[in-house]
């Protein structure tokens, strides 16, 4: 939900003088102010009538407005001033250290190299002797990554060659200038500082820049800048103008920058790479674009009101992980830094036309394509993990070994969620719940936004609208459904509010630069921001979710953390001052971690309240690397526009690539009101995306699925039903994601890494390996062209069972009911066709197996079953995990985990074999007995249907076609 009203900073300051309040750019904001600003509201509203619907870019910094980015970006590639002091090299078996010196200012840096298990190289660069410690990101890595021995292969005056394990991979450290190259055989996979853009602004005592007109200080600050500094020295005026070193002002907000310039930067070259992905969150295509001539991609968690599409502006979350891919190899770069970060991308082929590339090919141009990347962060250290693949799945595994895997959500969380800002009161909730039953549309979760609270005091209920929350929750539980209530991190400053008093008394609030409790404006008006980076604060927060603390809560109430960038309506760029303090660290150092910690603490609370038995479900808007461990993420406050529907695909694909699989966009669009056609298409798309939740802004007309006439209700019902039928597959995919770190929603190239035609596709996607989805995202579409990958493979239309060959662009005529989805030949997918009003109601229902044969007449799949909501699958191994294989006309179910134990009432009611031929006889072998199975054969589509074989879903069995 939410938004970040385009507050004009100048008006913000007026607030203090009583001049007139900031302009709330929507009514939720206004509602927040209502309590205090009463009469002024009408005035505010009238000012707003002409407001536009696009993002107010002026509220957010460009690189040029962010002094360190501007400073760093002004550096041009060239000879690096850094030199490796090889005689300082020390090697313990898994750690190599080496000093670097900046020959211009003689500052020493310490380089640490590690070889980590699973083909990962870690490169750390910090000051050898900083004035005070520099921030190193805690809590994101799941542990100290296990190392493997490093060995020196050779060493001379020019450098050192290290062995990176068995695959003839070497790491070459060049001394002058300092540079790192990772080689495999004769090939360079990746180089660091090859363009000489390593720049480490060392901590220093403040000098008076005014008395240093020569600009020497400026020159020193970007330590890598010396080579340019010589040229610029003549231009003293320019140096003088370069400000923002010890203080920087954006709009009316001044950042005091007590530590001065502290930014770090490093460049990476990727020879042979033309496709890079990742570094969410941006509203942009899957394949990252070069940033020359525009701003770099920015990573700085911000509440962006009505964000624009297809640009590199920062959004709500940040995962500093980039994937590089070509037909030979996939690699990853994980830049572990939580400060404001900018990423520049350039390419030597980006400017070339297809014709130009052909010409190179014909003329035998020796130039290999290359992508260059440069990371710049405002503070902290350089700590990079280079994940060397080589396969996409290897990179996912490598990244998961560092930051963990997707939490395994309760099954219900994968079902349909009905949200709106706001369901007005208990009666409204009840009426909506009944509406779903009346119109026979399934749903599992109904959501309450901020209006459910008593004056935006989270953990409380509005006494008039929600006087009996437990009665309401019980009513929902009686339907075997659940609820989510919002709990935002900003805390109303109100001495009558218990949570506030406790946090204040325990001294848990973030401090402003002068040491007092930091306060900013958010929904409740004046708010404090708990310091979630403090483990004691997180423990306190977690304890607030206990049933006896959170009054009116019950076990079917889950949580939504919004506004956790953090959003501060009257702060710079709508967030917290960078010089606010978290203990001894500045907010600057860890900004991008705030939302991560909020969700971590909330998730811990939900686990604790059940005594550690129940799996939590927490949705967050802000996130960082590792957030996948704590729950779900959504793409924030989108809009009811076709382009927003389209962008939901690359946005979630990008998140999946960096570990966050449980991703979704507000179905229908948050701002504005969708046309009926758009709403239906969005349901059809959302039904095939991981987190499937409809949501709407307070000011939009109601849009529950039955409000658009029987025809559209039927279309929406059908889309939701397709989701429910496919829940066993979704659940199994999330189990896999949890176990292995593989993404659930995948770009095509992940499964077809050598198929260059797939590398830039982001209007269709795979769920797991086996389902390909190309939702209709064009208004008025009569047809679309889907790319079916895979030479020699086949795909089956899941609705008609028609078979299509792989490696082709397939034109598909569509109607309003069409959701083009294909099952890969060679896969087996379980479904539950008895769609009921909630996923819990379907628990014991039988399965139908869809066996889609490949041209070799074989297929394989899995079936995973557990209780759907507890940790028993982990703690007691209470689950069923079956391997299903079809080969040589025999379908077999085998146990994949012999020590697991779980029993289910579910059975196999039907088996469909797609691409089959007609057998004479079908028999089932189970428990040493053989029985005959009835079947039907549809010759037109070559579909063999086995009627009610009836075996238990957890049993060993074999079905033979004869």
């Amino acid at each position: 939900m939410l938004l970040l009203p385009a507050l004009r900073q100048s008006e913000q300051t007026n607030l203090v003088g009583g001049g007139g309040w900031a302009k709330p750019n929507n009514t939720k904001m206004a509602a927040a102010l209502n309590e205090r600003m009463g009469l002024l509201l009408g005035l505010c509203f009238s000012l707003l009538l002409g407001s536009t619907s696009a993002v107010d870019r002026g509220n957010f910094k460009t690189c040029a407005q962010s002094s360190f980015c501007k400073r760093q970006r002004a550096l041009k590639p060239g000879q690096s001033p850094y030199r490796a002091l090889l005689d300082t090299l020390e090697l313990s078996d898994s750690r190599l250290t080496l000093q670097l010196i900046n020959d211009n200012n003689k500052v020493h840096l310490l380089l640490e190299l590690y070889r980590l298990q699973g083909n990962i190289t870690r490169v750390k660069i910090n000051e050898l002797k900083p004035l005070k410690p520099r921030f190193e990101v805690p809590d994101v890595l799941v542990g100290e990554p296990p190392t493997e021995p490093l060995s020196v292969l050779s060493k001379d005056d020019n450098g050192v060659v290290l062995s990176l394990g068995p695959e003839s991979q070497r790491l070459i450290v060049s001394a002058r200038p300092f540079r790192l190259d990772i080689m495999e055989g004769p090939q360079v996979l990746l180089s660091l500082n090859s363009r000489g853009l390593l720049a480490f602004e060392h901590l220093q005592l403040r000098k008076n820049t005014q008395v240093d007109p020569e600009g020497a200080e400026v020159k020193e600050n970007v330590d890598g800048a010396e080579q340019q500094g010589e040229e610029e020295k003549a231009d003293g005026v320019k140096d003088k103008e370069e400000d923002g070193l010890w203080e920087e002002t954006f709009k009316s907000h001044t950042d005091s920058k007590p530590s001065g310039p502290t930014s770090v930067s490093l460049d990476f070259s990727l020879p042979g790479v033309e496709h890079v992905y990742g570094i969410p969150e941006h509203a942009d295509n899957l394949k990252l674009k070069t940033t020359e001539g525009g701003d770099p991609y920015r990573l700085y968690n911000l509440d962006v009101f009505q964000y624009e599409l297809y640009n590199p502006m920062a959004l709500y979350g940040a995962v500093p992980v980039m994937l590089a891919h070509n037909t030979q190899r996939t690699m990853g770069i994980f830049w572990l830094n939580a400060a404001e970060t900018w990423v520049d991308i350039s390419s030597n082929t980006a400017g070339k036309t297809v014709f130009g590339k052909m010409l190179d090919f014909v003329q035998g141009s020796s130039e290999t394509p290359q992508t260059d990347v440069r990371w710049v962060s405002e503070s902290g250290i350089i700590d990079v993990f280079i994940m060397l693949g080589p396969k996409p799945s290897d990179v996912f595994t490598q990244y998961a070994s560092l930051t963990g895997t997707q939490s395994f959500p309760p099954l219900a969380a994968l079902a349909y969620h009905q949200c709106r800002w706001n369901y007005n009161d208990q009666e409204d909730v009840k009426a909506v719940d009944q509406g779903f039953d009346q119109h026979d549309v399934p749903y599992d979760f109904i959501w309450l936004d901020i209006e459910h609270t008593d004056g935006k005091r989270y953990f409380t209920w509005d006494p008039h609208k929600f006087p009996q929350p437990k009665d309401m929750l019980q009513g929902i539980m009686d339907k075997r459904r659940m609820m989510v209530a919002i709990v935002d991190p900003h805390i109303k400053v109100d001495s009558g509010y218990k949570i506030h008093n406790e946090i204040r008394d325990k001294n848990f609030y973030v401090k402003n630069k002068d040491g007092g409790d930091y306060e900013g404006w958010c929904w409740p008006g004046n708010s404090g921001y708990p310091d979630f980076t403090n483990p004691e604060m997180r423990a306190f927060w977690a304890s607030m979710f206990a049933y006896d603390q959170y009054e009116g809560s019950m076990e079917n109430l889950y949580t939504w953390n919004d506004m956790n960038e953090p959003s501060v309506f009257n702060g710079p760029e709508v967030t917290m001052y960078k010089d606010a303090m978290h203990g001894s660290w500045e907010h600057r150092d860890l900004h991008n971690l705030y939302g991560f910690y909020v969700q971590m603490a909330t998730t811990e609370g939900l686990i604790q309240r059940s005594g550690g038995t129940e799996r939590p479900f927490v949705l967050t808007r802000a996130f960082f690397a590792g957030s996948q461990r704590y729950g779900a993420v959504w793409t924030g406050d989108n809009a009811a526009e076709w382009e927003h529907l389209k962008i939901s695909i690359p946005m979630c694909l990008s998140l999946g690539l960096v570990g966050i699989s449980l991703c979704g966009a507000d179905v229908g669009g948050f701002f504005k009101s969708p046309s009926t056609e758009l709403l239906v298409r969005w349901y059809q798309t959302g039904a095939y995306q991981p987190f499937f939740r409809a949501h709407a802004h307070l000011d939009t007309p109601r849009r529950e699925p039955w409000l658009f006439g029987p025809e559209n209700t039927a279309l929406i019902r059908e889309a939701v039903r397709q989701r429910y039928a496919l829940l066993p597959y979704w659940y199994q995919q999330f189990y896999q994601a949890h176990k292995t770190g593989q993404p659930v929603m995948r770009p095509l190239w992940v499964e077809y890494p050598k198929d260059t035609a797939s590398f830039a596709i982001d209007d269709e996607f795979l769920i797991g390996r086996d389902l390909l989805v190309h939702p209709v995202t064009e208004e008025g579409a009569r047809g679309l062209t889907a790319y079916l990958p895979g030479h020699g493979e086949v795909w089956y239309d899941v609705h008609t069972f028609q078979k299509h060959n792989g490696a082709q662009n397939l034109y598909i005529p569509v109607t309003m009911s069409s959701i083009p989805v294909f099952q890969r030949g060679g896969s087996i997918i379980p479904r539950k066709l008895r769609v009921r009003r909630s996923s819990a109601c379907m628990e014991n229902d039988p399965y139908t197996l869809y066996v889609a044969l490949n041209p070799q007449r074989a297929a394989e799949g899995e079936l995973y079953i557990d209780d759907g909501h507890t940790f028993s699958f982990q703690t007691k191994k209470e689950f069923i995990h079956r391997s299903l294989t079809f080969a040589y006309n025999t379908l077999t179910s085998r146990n994949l985990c012999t020590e697991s134990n779980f029993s289910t009432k579910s059975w196999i009611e039907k088996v469909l074999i797609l691409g089959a031929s007609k057998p004479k006889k079908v028999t089932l072998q189970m428990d040493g007995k053989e029985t005959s199975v009835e079947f039907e054969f549809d010759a037109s589509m070559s579909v063999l249907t086995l009627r009610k074989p009836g075996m238990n879903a957890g049993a060993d069995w074999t079905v033979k076609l004869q």
Partner: protein
Amino acid sequence: MTGTHLLFISLALSLGAAVEVQRPRGVPITKRQFYDENLPFTCLDGSRTIPFDRVNDDYCDCKDGSDEPGTSACPNGNFHCTNAGFRPTFIPSSRINDGICDCCDTTDEYNSGAKCENTCKELGRKEREVLQRMAEITKEGFLLKQQLIEEAKAGQQERQRKLTEMQNSRKEMEEKVEALRTVKETAEVPEKEAKERHLKAWEEQKATSRAEKDKAKMTEAFFELDDDADGFVSLAELQTHAELDSDADGSFSETEAQALFGGAEQVDTAAFERVWSNIKDKYVSESQPVEPTPVTTPPEESKEPLTDNDSEPYPDDEDILEEEEEEEDDEDDFAEEDLDKATPTTRSPEKKEEDEEAMPPYDSETHALIDVMPSEVAVTVLSSTAAQKARDDFEESERALREVEDQIKNIEKEISFDFGPSAEYTYLYSQCYELPTSEYIYRLCPFNRVSQKPKYGGSETNLGTWGAWAGPEENKYLLMKYEHGTGCWQGPNRSTTVKLTCGKETAVTSTSEPSRCEYLMEFTTPAVCQDPPNVDSSLPGHDEF
């Protein structure tokens, strides 16, 4: 009547139980004949025929779901709950054994472990009570409605009668207005002449008065100039008035002065008349400061007397209290001030002259003449009084006509509303009904508007003005739509739907805002009550017969 009822139900109960064994689970008695266990079963859509043992075998064979009436196997199947004692119903097959009790007779949860209790009896009893109550309300409401219809009819006739009457009197009045207009215009002729006469006289008088004033000024100037009081103004005496410097070179030379005297060395009072006409525009009296103090920007010190001056209409707010206290004392001061004012101390002569010329505004002067005129215009007085009376009469008649026209318009507007098939909603017209909630007072004025006023201060919000009846086709009088209320931020204009239900009272019973700026109001009125059908036939428990 109640007794008979209970008998029927118990009969239904035993019958229901008896029937249950004779048909497959989930099949309504009306379809029993299609499920004969001795014959193969043909799907009800005729699509295929299957052995009877595949009916309710928990596998869906028929596309229409008809082979699995009692299981959840078919996605589009329906399950029939007998619900003896209450209302029988169909539920979707997906609700069979889903752990949630849907049928009050518990028959949908035969294999799920859900603990369901048979609540049909209780539900039936409650529903009958509700229906009974509703029936009573409907009955009474319907009676009231008949009254309303009668009243409306009477009212309508009354209005029609009144309208006719009004239309007639309008005609009369129009004639009267015309007649009086003629009278007025005739009466106004002498008055007009008198006015013109008066105007002319006034202008002559003004000219005379101007000349006299000029002469007085001249005399005053003469004596001012004649410093040695010898009865002549000499060149030197004239030269003391530097403002008369004709070439404006800063020095008023003797030659220049002589030129003004027409060559003479000195002038007497008679000769000064000619001189005066040349210098009067420039001449500055010695009795006033050379630099006139502009009244518009008085210096701080002079503020006090100005404040007391009655030319300042309103005292400063802060002074009010003080002044009121001092009022009595001030009165004397005022008198003195008035006297002082006669000497033009702080005003420029131009200003004074303007004041004098503007003093007799034409209209008030005329009226004064008409009302209290001395003897020479006595005739005018008489005729003017007659004209005034004619005018008053004419205006009176016109006003009366307008009133009648307004009333006709109102009646016609009222008649133009659609007050229902029997005009039963007429009584709501020009009435308002309120419902206070915790925050607001909602107000419905049927056929006019809906509004919301905060309880604790703040202005009223228009939630819509009368649009149209908006109920379903079969009875559009069940919903009222009020539209085009106050606009919402980034949203539509507020609108309200009023749902009418039968009740003895006329009242707003609830309000809500289901969607942003779209309000829903529930309203009870006898006018919507339908002729109550036979209560018995609408009660449940009969369908199984």
